[in-house]
């Protein structure tokens, strides 16, 4: 074994420099040219940072579009899901409670239209997006509270829907809400 120990130590030192120093510095350098300069992409309103584009934040006010439930209270320094199994009675009760709450806050909405994403916690607890259906079903509530025509909000959702050839369509909740405030 002794014959191999010295080369092992030397190789380890050299590779630490290559892989733990040079490599991450190189990537950090390349990322300087990327959107957000490698610090994460921020969203601004009137020149002020209001959040990260890819990180969900809580919107408890009914006059805003609300993101998906979070098992970690939208804590972006401690991500995670609920880790509840699909047959766990406690989990199923939580989902039922969320449906009931949603129906109270969104009168006039057809229960059969509620997409599951709005009553289940995301994997990261920070899911920044909704499906177009998840955003549209909140339009009635917001239009009533803000006294704006529903059609105007449907158009807003449509304008913020990102479609792609591969993968699902999505709406970024934070950017949608920034646009919602600018609507007047």
């Amino acid at each position: 074994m002794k014959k191999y120990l010295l080369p092992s130590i030397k190789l380890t030192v050299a590779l630490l420099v290559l892989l733990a120093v040079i490599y991450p510095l190189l990537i950090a350098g390349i990322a300087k040219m990327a959107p957000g300069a490698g610090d994460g992409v921020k969203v601004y309103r009137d020149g002020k940072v209001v959040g990260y584009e890819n990180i969900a934040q809580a919107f408890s006010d009914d006059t805003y579009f609300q993101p998906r439930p979070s098992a970690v209270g939208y804590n972006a320094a401690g991500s995670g899901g609920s880790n509840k199994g699909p047959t766990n009675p406690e989990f199923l009760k939580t989902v039922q409670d969320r449906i009931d709450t949603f129906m109270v806050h969104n009168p006039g909405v057809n229960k059969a239209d509620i997409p599951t994403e709005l009553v289940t916690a995301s994997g990261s607890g920070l899911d920044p997006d909704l499906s177009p259906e998840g955003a549209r079903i909140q339009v009635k509530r917001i239009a009533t509270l803000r006294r704006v025509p529903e059609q105007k909000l449907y158009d807003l959702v449509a304008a913020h829907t990102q479609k792609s050839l591969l993968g699902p369509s999505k709406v970024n909740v934070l950017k949608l809400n920034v646009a919602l405030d600018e609507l007047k």
Partner: protein
Amino acid sequence: MNSEYLGIIFSYILTICIALLLARYIAKVFLGEKVWTDKLFGPLDRFLFRFMGIKEEEEMTWKEHLKALLTINMLWLVYAFFVLLFQDKLPLNPDHNPGQTPDLAFNTAISFLVNCNLQDYSGESGATYFSQLFVVTFLQFVSAATGIAALAIVFKALKEKTVTKLGNFWVYFTKSITRILLPISIVIATVLAFNGTPASFKGKDTIITMQGDTQNVSRGPAAGMIAIKHLGTNGGGWFGANSAHPLENPNYITNVTEIVAQVILPVALIFAMGIYIRRKKFAYIVFGVMTVGMFMLLIPTIVSEVHGNPAIAHMGINGANTAMEGKEVRLGIPASAYWTTMTTIISTGSVNCMHESMMPMTGGMQLLGMMINCFYGGCGVGILNYYIFIIIAVFISGLMVGRTPEFMGHKVEAKEMKIAAIIALLHPFLILAGTAISSYVIVNHGGAAWTVQPKNWLNNPGYHGFSEMLYQYTSCAANNGSGFEGLADNNMFWNVTAGFVLILARFLPIIGPVAIAGIMAQKKFIPESAGTLKTDTATFGIMTMAVIMIIAALAFFPSLALGPLAEYFSMK
């Protein structure tokens, strides 16, 4: 929905195309032929060899190879343990995270050393930037390279007629990094950075949200680590939520990049074997068996996830996509189902949705994927696991037709068979013994006065709770690293027992195949004749598949019946 199926078809086709291109390149690297990266990295290689004081042309026997491999791995284990233990006293800790406890550092150091990347901590609060780079990223490179180097030894043994010297371990290992892992990682990391993954060294950011809350956002030099995490089939995440985290996997483009990145090397190495040993047909048969196996796990997974959770459908809301718990909108259900199959068969163990919240049938397929652990399999080690099954299949086929079992022109005799049998049985032994012990402790010592009482280990009741424990040991024994994360695993019992399973399940399945290949390569070469059992035929492929199925089904069926199958049949 159609665009989502298109997404996974595109991902798979792209994987195979890149793997085919890479295969020739990888074969040339290990054959020592000229490749286009020589100009760029040739001087770096030569510098490293001179610095280490080794001669490139000095060849090693299989025993010398294993001594070198084990020596350097043990060195990394000691090094990683102490860095994690004292990480709070080292630089690059902008978030002021604490040092790890001894049992957590033991588990984490082993876990990354063995290419498993089971994480009993969360990246945001449990590791410093120094640890993330000097332990995690470093070990992600070198553990993948260890697997590839071990495979290169076996390639050499399969190719030659009669040989004792099998190339130089340091050369195989170093070239795996400088010629394969590092250049491809740079490309992947660049794609991630340009799609919004953090890469700078800035610490946690504090912002005021639109409704006036204070939100802390963890960041850091993550892009480079996430690249090698997938390419090296490691799987450990920068953030706690792994690739479900919207900074670790910001959009569908990064999702395709990461899922393709983790499958290209396992597949490319199969084709590289065909080119290296000049038996392309043999490689295609191996690839074919593995692909059939992959689809047998993928299809039930997609069906059960798309079909969703009937208990939620009964609540009267929209019946489509009812399996969204633990998943992300930007990725969707089919891409999550595809990922979960790939990550469990190839030992990556990164997740883009929470495995614990998936449907019972999916959980069963995830477990089965890790129990078999050789459909494509991890970087290098996947083929080594499959090699064990080939040896057993050769032996059984030989007995069935009454011929001396031979493989690649060498006799398979008692010594090799004993090693193969031990390695094949080690995997179920570690998983089932571990699960049995933890179940026993919960039932009989639930109230033991430990930091976390055993009765509080599980996050879910009933069958699913049992699956949590079974999954943990299966993930460790398969060096996978994904988890049913509800399990309270950051405590003495789990950190230590999992640590031992991890280290045994890594090094014995490397030592075994290298030893078998090394011993067989020393034997007299027997030219193929009419009496030789042909191993590059579909018949032999089916035979290998049957051996895999019998070993996996017999050993694991009872435990699967108690966990995911029982949950599946009890679902209303």
